[in-house]
């Protein structure tokens, strides 16, 4: 029994319509951006009529966007405007109150493990085990993602080489953030979802990250970045989503 029907049955806070049948909206896109009539199988992230409510408060509604290969989306908005909520919804960690997010045409909550591996999410928490060394953390991550590879190069780029065998609990906040970015880079995901990735990073670290993002996009990757400094990443053709 597929769970796809669930969209029809979620009743909404915004509609009077007793039967919230919104099937017709999924897959149909009135505001397609630019060149794209995106194929279902193409690595593309689509948001359809997204709405999120916190209790009786509306964070956003009727959010609609398409993101194709090589494209960047920047999420901007004041504190509490729903940037993190939206990113978690895009990652499949949260459910939108209404609407659907698809990756390659499949709802993000229902992706097969392989397709899920194409998406990397980095939130406020670094996901480092404090009792393990940086190297142990990285190799655990690689093992779970099935992408074991040498990480010395990445660590060197982040100036973490000397710390590889230090337990994560002794790292500074900025160093922890760098280690988290190393995991992102090593994940080799197609879609990067980053929640304020520059927090705690010094100027040099931000430079490395910005360079990585540019390289990622050049290679046909996608990225959605929630940030208060969109200028650091902004590029021609990027989507600006203002919450």
């Amino acid at each position, binding site marked *: 029994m597929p769970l796809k029907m669930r969209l029809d049955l979620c009743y909404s806070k915004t509609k009077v319509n007793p039967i919230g049948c919104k099937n017709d909206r999924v897959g149909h896109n009135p505001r397609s951006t630019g060149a794209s009539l995106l194929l279902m199988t193409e690595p593309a992230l689509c948001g359809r009529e997204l709405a999120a409510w916190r209790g009786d408060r509306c964070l956003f509604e009727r959010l609609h966007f398409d993101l194709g290969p090589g494209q960047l989306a920047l999420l901007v908005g004041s504190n509490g405007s729903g940037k993190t909520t939206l990113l978690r919804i895009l*990652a*499949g*960690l*949260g*459910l939108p109150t209404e609407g659907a997010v698809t990756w390659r045409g499949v709802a993000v909550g229902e992706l097969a*493990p*392989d397709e*899920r*591996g194409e*998406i*990397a*999410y980095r*939130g*406020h*928490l*670094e*996901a*480092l*085990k*404090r*009792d*393990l060394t940086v190297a*142990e953390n990285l190799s*655990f*991550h690689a*093992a*779970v*993602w*099935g992408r074991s590879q040498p990480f010395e190069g990445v660590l060197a780029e982040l100036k973490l080489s000397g710390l590889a065998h230090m337990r994560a609990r002794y790292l500074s906040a900025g160093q922890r953030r760098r280690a988290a970015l190393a995991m992102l880079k090593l994940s080799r995901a197609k879609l990067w979802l980053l929640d304020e990735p520059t927090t705690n990073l010094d100027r040099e670290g931000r430079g490395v990250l910005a360079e990585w993002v540019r390289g990622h996009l050049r290679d046909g990757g996608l990225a959605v970045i929630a940030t208060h400094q969109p200028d650091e990443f902004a590029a021609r053709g990027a989507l600006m989503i203002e919450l």
Partner: protein
Amino acid sequence: MNAFNAVLLRDLRVAFRRWSELAHPLIFFVIVVTLFPLALSPTAAQLREVGIGVLWVATLLSSLLALDGLFRSDADDGSLEQLLLAPVPMTMTVLAKVVAHATVTLLPLLCLVPLSALSFNIPLAALPTLALALVLAAPTLSVLVALGAALTVSLRRGGSIVGLLVLPLTGPLLIFGTRATDLSVNGEPTAAPLLLLSALAVLAVSLGPFAIAAAVKVGLE
């Protein structure tokens, strides 16, 4: 399977690096077992009669203590949400975590129980059955407690509620476990309760991970 091993090894490693915490449930168990004779002011015969029940109840309570934080630390540092997003079925991850924690917390506890049984004058001949019953009950017990931990993963103070959720479900374990030990003390055949314990274990291990994974997923939403 690689991912299963990776999670298992990682959790074991983390547990051993915080080894002092591993001792808490054991100490708790010893204290509970010591308190009962104090409360009962017993004779040797009386002790033997209540001993089996006391040991089983103390084991249930200690395992509750041991597995309560199973998902909490991973949720706090963000690694749980990364595991949810990883290209690995969450049931597998959950199972690995439960196995790891049961190994480091329940196993020492199970070694302690037969020792304490001697102090309750439970005959030596009954100890193998007691140990076997405990081993057969351990999977079900870990799955149940892990489920409680998963249901409360997003609650700041989930600890007090876990017992409320889990302990009523452990009724059958307690019944079959104590019955098996009782029967063997009286020198009667113990196959029936032991088989029922294994049936429960199979049921718990095959269905439990799905419920636990679902609970973790909803908890992090």
